[in-house]
């Protein structure tokens, strides 16, 4: 009886260890799987051409990803530019000013914002933001736009990353000892002065990490962007132009990809690029965190 129990414990331990190691390595499996599938195209085309050529003609065997990479960068840039001020101000308000009751009421709402599926954001963008840009914002600038544009994608994405920045920032602010605020307040500083000079300074690495996290979220977001960005494979020259982000490219062409030579390889290379960029952001955010923290401490 006793030995049987111990044996069971030991076996389970081994099994769980294997499972744990396996699950920890999934990210490498994904990278490896995508790399294997993108090797055919990497074998015959130089990587620089694939990444920096603007010519995308799968039937002629030309697979320049540059317009799509730029499309993603534009959309991500606009989204983060909109999201930063709103979400930082909100996070500061909720953690430093708002009454407990307000905090308790808004927290689940912001969680809900994070939980809404991206297609729902997409359908909302199509129904509300796209017409808004077409009928009101573009005429304001004296230009024409179908509404399906960098700006539309940027606005929708910004709303999607609000919860990311707010959540991380509030956590970081909460980790700062109350006594540090008191030290500044006791000198007669106003709350805002305390936040600006002391709390935000202490929280800076966390805020940067929050923004980098939002960047990587926006970078890989697919469905909502696909539905409102317009998807024209050209370099956008203004926020009212359409863009064709990388994830949208992958989704839109899954149908044909097995019938044109190298097409699937090109699209899986695009996924690999997406994965590597997101991994880079994640790891970057950790390094920034450690560095800035060390400097402040």
């Amino acid at each position, binding site marked *: 009886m006793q030995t049987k129990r111990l044996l069971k414990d030991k076996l389970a331990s081994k099994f769980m260890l294997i499972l744990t190691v396996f699950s920890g390595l999934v990210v490498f499996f994904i990278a490896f799987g995508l790399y294997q599938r993108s090797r055919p195209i990497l074998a015959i085309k130089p990587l620089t051409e694939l990444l920096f050529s603007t010519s995308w003609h799968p039937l002629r065997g030309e697979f320049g990803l540059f317009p799509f990479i730029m499309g993603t960068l534009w959309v991500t840039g606009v989204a983060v530019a909109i999201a930063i001020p709103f979400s930082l101000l909100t996070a500061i308000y909720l953690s430093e000013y708002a009454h407990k009751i307000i905090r308790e009421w*808004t927290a689940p*709402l912001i969680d809900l914002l994070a*939980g809404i599926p991206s297609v729902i954001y997409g359908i909302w963008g199509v129904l509300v933001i796209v017409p808004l840009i077409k009928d009101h914002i573009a005429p304001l600038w004296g230009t024409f736009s179908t509404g399906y544009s960098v700006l539309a994608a940027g606005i929708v994405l910004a709303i999607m990353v609000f919860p990311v920045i707010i959540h991380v920032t509030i956590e970081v602010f909460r980790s700062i000892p109350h006594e540090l605020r008191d030290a500044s307040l006791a000198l007669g500083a106003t709350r805002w002065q305390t936040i600006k000079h002391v709390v935000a300074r202490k929280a800076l690495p966390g805020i940067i990490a929050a923004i980098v996290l939002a960047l*990587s979220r926006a970078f890989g977001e*697919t469905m909502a962007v696909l539905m409102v960005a317009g998807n024209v494979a050209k370099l956008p020259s203004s926020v009212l132009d359409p863009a064709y982000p990388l994830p949208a490219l992958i989704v839109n062409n899954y149908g044909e990809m097995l019938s044109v030579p190298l097409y699937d390889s090109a699209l899986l290379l695009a996924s690999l690029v997406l994965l590597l960029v997101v991994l880079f952001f994640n790891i970057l955010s950790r390094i920034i965190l450690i560095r800035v923290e060390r400097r402040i401490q």
Partner: protein
Amino acid sequence: MVRLGLPHMNKRRIEENIFKGLMIFSTFIILSCLLLILGTIIIKGLPAMNLAMITQTPKGGYYLGKEGGILNAIIGSLYLAGGATFLAILISLPVVLYLNVYTKKGSRLVFFTRFSFDVLWGVPSIVYGAFGFTIMLFLGLRASLLGGIIAVSFLIFPIMSRAMDEVIRMIPEELLDASYALGATRLETAFKIVTRQALPGILTAVLIAFGRGIGDAASVIFTAGFTDHIPYSLFRPAATLPLAIFFQLGTPIPEVQERAYASAFILTAIILIVSVVSRILTKRFTKHVVK
């Protein structure tokens, strides 16, 4: 003592008020975005809801046929998210128990695994879709319910694991020690004490993962395909609510678009229910945790 004298100033009070105003404004904007989104979905979706919508599959092709409903997508989504959640539990629960019961404090494996889950959490769902697709090519599978379940379980298991890990970490060390002191093995402690103590938290983690799984479109578009029919086997393609929205919104036919709105309404309702229930569970859990 020398009093050096400080000027009195009013400027900072003005600055304080300006920023406080901006903060309240931002919070208001962000919350109204949420209300606007939910409002739009309800206004468009509610009129599209009727009995046929939720009891029939589309007639004459989901993209063009004007008749029928979205039962294919409702059932498909439940199958798919249910299956993926089940698979994810099979991976997450042992892994999280291992991390918290079997390993020593400060273990590298624990650090690495948690870090890896955090990174996986940030990997875009389209990448999981693409990865799922490569697995299917490897196994010789075609777009099917099973393919979708595999891709989505990869997508949600890191989320589930991290959420479980957060609650199980809070279980006091003393509780484990008490169990060991009674002669229990680690395995018995893990499955009899830890899981029981953390049950509401584990259920919350499962619900969060389910919610994420049922709402995701990019990971299933390659892997599960889309169909007018209710799948009767794991190897048949399956329709899902998010893709029902995506595909049917794109047609020029108003009746078909109605189906997209109805799908959006149902999906949003599911997400709302999941989030309310998990919130209730979290509340209950934190009530019992000894601080």
